[in-house]
């Protein structure tokens, strides 16, 4: 039962700027653990989004690029096409990936670009102060949906993993969460798997992570976790939506 636990090597020592209880920190660690595990830090290039994770490069020790809002998949495409030997991942929030960057992620996924995307779905725009995201839950209040998301007016939240899984090109598409240690351990496996597919030059790989934003939800970290479990998980079911194997079998 007793185990050891240490900071992954390719995670830097720097303390993060995230709010207390923000799950970005956990997800960073899982990415770092996967990269450590696969011993690929020396050939990895990360791509930071525009969102709360915009300076996430400060927390990793390998090469990094900073994208424009939503364009990380295009940058990753640029890198992988000219340097297929590099391991590339994008780390993107839901405003970044699902709103302004929808075209880029759909096309990168559909072309089967061989990079990995870690998609942090916290149902809100964090960095800019809690505006509505495409993933905001029905009736959820945000600074631009002060009366709650009205689905009659702006539609239902987008399930990005399902959307991408509906494309015909083979890919690894999974949805995970970090709401409890058990979930975190599963998410860790999924992220490792996503990188593994890339190392094997297999396919595009995509890990959606259902997350929290206690600050903009106006909750304590513990309450945020409960809210996400109760409200988000039923709408954003966990698990693998697509694997390259499942496509080949079909």
């Amino acid at each position: 039962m007793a185990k050891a636990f240490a900071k992954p090597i390719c995670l830097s020592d720097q303390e993060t700027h995230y709010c207390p209880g923000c799950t970005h920190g956990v997800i960073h660690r899982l990415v770092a653990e996967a990269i450590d595990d696969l011993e690929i830090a020396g050939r990895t290039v990360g791509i930071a989004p525009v969102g709360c994770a915009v300076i996430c490069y400060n927390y990793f020790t390998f090469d990094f690029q900073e994208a424009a809002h939503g364009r990380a998949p295009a940058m990753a495409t640029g890198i992988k096409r000219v340097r297929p030997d590099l391991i590339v991942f994008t780390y993107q929030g839901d405003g970044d990936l699902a709103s302004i960057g929808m075209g880029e992620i759909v096309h990168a996924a559909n072309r089967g670009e061989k990079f990995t995307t870690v998609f942090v779905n916290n149902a809100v725009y964090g960095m800019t102060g809690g505006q509505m995201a495409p993933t905001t839950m029905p009736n959820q209040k945000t600074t631009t949906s002060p009366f709650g998301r009205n689905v009659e007016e702006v539609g239902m939240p987008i399930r990005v993993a399902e959307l991408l899984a509906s494309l015909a090109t083979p890919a690894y598409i999974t949805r995970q969460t970090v709401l409890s240690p058990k979930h975190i351990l599963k998410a860790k496996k999924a992220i490792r798997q996503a990188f593994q597919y890339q190392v094997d030059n297999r396919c595009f790989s995509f890990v959606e992570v259902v997350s929290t934003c206690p600050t903009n939800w106006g909750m304590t970290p513990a309450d945020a976790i409960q809210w996400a479990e109760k409200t988000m998980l039923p709408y954003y079911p966990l698990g693998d939506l697509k694997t390259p194997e499942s496509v080949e079998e079909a």
Partner: protein
Amino acid sequence: MQSEVMFAGFGGQGILLSGKILAEAAMEKELEVAWVPSYGPEMRGGTAYCTVVISDNPIASPIIRNPMHLVAMNRPSLEKFAGTVKPGGVILVNSSLIPIASGREDVDELSVPVTDIAAGLGNVRTANIVALGAFVARSGIIDFETLKETVRNEFKQKKKFIEMNMAALEEGRKAAA
């Protein structure tokens, strides 16, 4: 005549609101005002500050590096800004959280345990109003009655807060006496 007040503290200490109330009070007195916030990318933590400029003439530059007065709600703010205050100004130090003094000889330094006073009133979140009361009482930058009127107005939507905040103002005034 122009005078400037910098309010500084942690995000969440109600810094921006104190400034806004002062600015509104001055506006009531038909003075020219400008309220200039610091704004940064981080949602939480770090130092928040705002500057209120009050003048009987149109305000030229709203960017003030040397304010007349300072209301310092936490230690980093005092350390960062104490040196910028003009000689003769008021520096209010929230002694509940700041164990040190400004180190300035040429200013009117006023040490008030505003957080403790607010806690005593039953709500630490009124610390900013305690500080405002103390600061206005000491500096005389506007008359106290107008300030009270403005605070009353500010909370008119949430009646239950009015009394608490009026008490906070009074406690501030007493502490500055």
